[in-house]
């Protein structure tokens, strides 16, 4: 199990790197657009490509951010008691996993139909939409993995430093 978790951790950090690469790509595209405009060369479709990179950065960033515990939630009642907290965390993780799987399922469906009907972007880029849309499935699938790992730790290894319960308690101690 330990080995699996090492690989998972690498996967999540890798997603962080992918998101970072998309962020750099946004910067490069926009700078290219500005330079293009200055020398009088129009760059059609760049705004669309930047939009796809934005989606890439967001969806790959989702799992990385969840792995680093940086998503926002109302923690008012999470800190009441350990037992209560366990129940709430369980409920939150089940809901999040459900929604994440639901999302991946319908994202696959969207991509399938985009591919089947040769959907192209309505912008000047005329990209075949299924290609950028792939990030939705990939990102949310990894997000599901992060959540499953957290659920596993919650149920079986509550004392692990990465477990949701341990995290919440250490935040309480800090403050």
């Amino acid at each position, binding site marked *: 199990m330990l080995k699996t978790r090492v690989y998972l951790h690498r996967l999540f950090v890798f997603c*962080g790197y992918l998101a970072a690469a998309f*962020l750099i790509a*946004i*910067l490069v595209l926009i700078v290219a657009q500005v330079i293009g405009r200055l020398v009088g060369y129009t760059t059609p479709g760049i705004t669309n490509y930047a939009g796809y990179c934005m989606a890439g950065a*967001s969806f790959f960033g989702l799992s990385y*951010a969840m792995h680093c515990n940086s998503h926002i939630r109302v923690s008012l009642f999470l800190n009441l008691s350990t037992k209560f907290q366990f129940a709430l965390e369980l409920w*939150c993780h089940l809901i999040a996993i459900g929604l994440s799987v639901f999302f991946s399922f319908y994202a696959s469906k969207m991509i399938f139909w985009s591919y089947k009907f040769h959907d192209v972007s309505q912008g000047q880029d005329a990209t075949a939409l299924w290609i950028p849309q792939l990030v939705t499935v990939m990102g949310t699938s990894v997000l599901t993995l992060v959540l499953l790992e957290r659920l596993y730790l919650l149920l079986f290894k509550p004392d692990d430093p990465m477990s949701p319960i341990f995290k919440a308690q250490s935040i309480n101690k800090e403050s």
Partner: protein
Amino acid sequence: MEHIELISIFLFVLFLLLGTGVWVGFALMGVAIVGIELFTSRPSGDAMLTAIWASSTSWSLTALPLFIWMGEILFRTKLSQDLFKGLSPWMSSLPGGLLHTNIVGCTIFAAVSGSSAATLTTVGKMSIPELEKRNYPRHLIIGTLAGAATLGLMIPPSLTLIVYGVTINESISKLFLAGIVPGLFLAGMFMLYVVIYSLVKGRQDIILDGAKTFKQKLAASRFLIPVLLLVTFVIGSMYSGIATATEAASFGVIGAFILASVQGSMTVETFKASIFGAVSTSAMIALILMGASFLSLSMGFTGLPRALAEWIATMDLSRFELLMALLVFYIIIGCFLDGISAVVLTIAIVEPMIRQAGIDIIWFGIFIVVVVEMAQITPPIGFNLFVLQGMTGHQIGYIARTAVPMFLIMLLMVFILIALPELATWLPEQMRSRP
């Protein structure tokens, strides 16, 4: 009204999910699915993907990670150390002395970073120990810091304003320009408070630094000047219309990168730390925006926002009464949610009301930002209070009490904004009139 059942179910599911600690973005998606499944015959899964794909690929949204990245780079330079050293010689002769470094420091850092937590940590880290060493009253040190740090949300680049602009489809540049004058005005009122307080109470046992000549002052702040130039350039490029908000943000990132390299604080480690910080903050906001875009589609299907707007219209509220109702509403919501979540969660409902009442939507953006700023320093969930608690070790209650005067100043600001809407609308109109 016939929508009462719809509203109560939406609210019940929303409070249930948010209250039990479900991540805000997921909670909004959950409510959206329940709404579609119960009240319409449309398939929720396909609607979800359509809404979320469209909103995640929005061009104007790309300004968000770039501005976060710019702040993350400058956050890791020597800026935070220089902020106190560079400002204190200029402030020491004012009544209230170095307390003003808190306010001016926050104002400057707010122009670098779009978040109030980052502003608070950067400025507080340096100024709290220095001010305590000089015997400034504790409650004033903490109170001014808590209040002034909220300027991070108002002075451009402001993450809350980007999110607001993206959700209502308005120009982010205009919103940024609208935030400048009210932001500076609010900073001025904070400073005025410190001046009046210290004139009334008199200087107690504050240790003064030796006076410095103009040249020495300039030398102490030589590192601040490039940062100020960068900020002016970023905002100026939007104002003059040479660049869109996203383009200005990319100038900002490159400028910050150059500044950090010249200063010698740009290593591979800080570069990685800055970009990963940007990735995780912008993904956090992206999840909330995904949930919010789906929820507003879902509510749109049910016809609730339009119905509510019409219902409000039949009540014949004056503009002032409507704004007062919204003020109370947002202060309450802000007690439990962070600013960005509060804005995206409510805007689908509030936007039609505002447009119906003929209120300027840019002006309303500034109004909403002042109100969610106030919420940052109100218990039980005031984000700045938590950050300050972590930094100083004081109880939340104590910190909240020290921030009460700042809260009242912001409340006054809300009424000034209502009385003088030009504070917010004048600057963007200047831009509008340009070719």
